């Protein structure tokens, strides 16, 4: 089986999972006891207005028919209308998705740059004070509630030192949309001032999101490096008199890369999951904060849409990791 057939098969396998997810979320969202229509229109609305809006949304139909019409809408790329913003959920998500992706990718870079080297170093200097200290820090780091870290950074670095803006994504000026990532778009535009500003807004939220993940990554990298350093060939190299650190960086690292890659898949999932907390704390206009607001407003179309999008992103990330295995480790055959 060649690579493309494998990719196609894996993509097809995603379909039942996604369909199950759709049924699950849809069922949860539609059995809610509260009256979302009343909530959306406010207490001033008359009973006739509520009934009319309910009919307009199709909520007077039996559940299975609502599901069928929702799915046939989805097939055309229609996620329904939000009862909070009164706009198309698809459009709302399109406007907010790039902000979340920019945040998550920036956090991923920070987590990798901080976490992996620390994991490798602690594996090399295993059981020394460096290792013990880093382990204690890493286990504590995992325990940090992200919403709290964000608030602490807002109080100390942003408000106290005044280095970074406290909340938001831009200082009023936005680059022309190409990718939707403000930092990248500003660079494409050649506007360094705008790039600097976008970066200053991005750093604190990205760092907050990344910190516990970096700690987790360091722990897991350490474990897989220790496993790799236990292999026979390491002993052979040691017997030839090659320095431990050289063996680690040149040989063991490559061999533990596949497990580090799995970790990246997990890391990406954790970042997408926790983006909601960071977005709420920093008023970052992303899709997760949009989803959280939708939950509070009982805006079910938006909740179903956002959950599906997050699920798809999560599953795709895992798929990409699986595919990269074959590139990094020739022992892994697609099958």
């Amino acid at each position, binding site marked *: 089986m060649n690579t493309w057939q494998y990719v196609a098969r894996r993509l097809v396998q995603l379909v039942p999972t996604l369909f*199950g997810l759709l049924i699950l979320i849809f069922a*949860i969202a539609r059995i*809610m006891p*509260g009256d979302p229509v009343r909530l959306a229109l406010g207490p001033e609305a008359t009973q006739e207005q509520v009934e009319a809006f309910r009919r307009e949304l199709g909520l007077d139909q039996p559940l299975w028919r609502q599901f069928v019409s929702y799915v046939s809408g989805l097939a055309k790329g229609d996620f329904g209308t939000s009862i909070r913003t009164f706009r198309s959920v698809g459009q709302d998500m399109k406007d907010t998705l790039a902000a979340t992706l920019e945040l998550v990718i920036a956090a991923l870079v920070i987590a990798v740059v901080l976490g992996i080297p620390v994991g490798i170093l602690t594996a090399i200097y295993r059981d020394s004070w460096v290792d013990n200290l880093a382990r204690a820090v890493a286990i*504590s780091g995992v325990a940090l509630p992200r919403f709290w870290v964000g608030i602490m950074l807002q109080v100390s670095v942003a*408000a106290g030192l005044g280095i970074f803006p406290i909340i938001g994504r831009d200082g009023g000026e936005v680059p022309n949309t190409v990718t939707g990532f403000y930092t990248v778009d500003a660079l494409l535009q050649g506007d360094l001032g705008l790039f600097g500003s976008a970066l200053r807004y991005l750093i604190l939220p990205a760092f907050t999101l990344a910190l516990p993940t970096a700690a987790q990554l360091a722990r897991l990298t350490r474990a897989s490096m220790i496993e790799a350093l236990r292999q026979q060939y390491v002993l052979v190299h040691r017997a030839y008199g090659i320095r431990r650190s050289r063996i680690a960086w040149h040989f063991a690292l490559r061999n533990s890369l596949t497990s580090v890659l799995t970790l990246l898949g997990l890391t990406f999932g954790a970042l997408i999951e926790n983006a*909601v907390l960071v977005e709420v704390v920093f008023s970052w206009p992303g899709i997760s904060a949009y989803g959280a607001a939708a939950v509070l407003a009982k805006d079910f179309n938006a909740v179903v849409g956002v*959950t599906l999008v997050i*699920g798809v992103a999560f599953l795709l990330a895992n798929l990409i990791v699986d595919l990269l295995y074959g590139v990094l480790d020739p022992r892994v055959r697609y099958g």
Partner: protein
Amino acid sequence: MASDVPVATLQEPAGRSGKRFKVVRQLFRNRLSVLGLFIVLLVIVAALFAPYVAPYPEDAGPKVHFDRALQPPSAAHWFGTDDVGRDIFSRSVFGSRLALQFAVVVLGIALTIGIPLGLVAGYWSGSTLSTLILRVTDVFLAVPPLALALAVTVAFKPSLTTAMVAISFTWWPWFTRLIYGETLKLRTEPYIEAARALGQNPMIINFKHILPNIISPIIVKATLDVSFVILLGSSLSFLGVGAQEPTPDWGAMVARGRLYLPFEWWVSTMPGFAIFITVVGFNFLGDGLRDALDVWDQ
């Protein structure tokens, strides 16, 4: 005796004498896990004796003392006071009660659902029922827990119970998966095969022979999960879909304190610190248990 050899190989690993003692000794050799155990015991004591530990126990409820609102930390109020003058230390102490209750209920539900399903899926692996169970867990695992729990709360009024239901709902598949994998490994062990060959009831094989032998990874996961569940629960409360005023929930307290940032920083900082310390304690302990029980990451 000729029968010695097969009997010896059919011996179940669980229940070997002296193993428990070794685990405890191993656990106490690691300084971090001792620290973790200490923190965990401290939190449990605070939770059990909250009305006696808290200097102002009446502040756990909807009490107001506007005369001492928003006071910074001092000898009288270690963590300061909030916007209606309640002692934040007392509220944080009562918060430990909620957090532990929360974790116990969620993990209790998750284990009650997760263990039988995992055993069934593993023991009868390949059967239609097993495949069905695994496909259902796939659906649940397709969305990260916080996102799924958040979506679940849309169907209910915001409350602590809502958050508990939502997280239990998302948590059991992780246990099912773990137990499925472990059962699958044990299924072909000689002592299980022997029990099966003797015509033992599968229920008894599962609960009396398989479960006790996979209990170590379950204990380790459950201990580490206490910290994740507490983090998740406080996150839901922080986002406003969990515990509501005047419940002294840590996450809800942090959220309320945000209104008084950056000047009255202690209102948000102190309850967040309580979450952090508690979660660190369970992490250290779980990590130590993993080493002591010799359980490897999946």
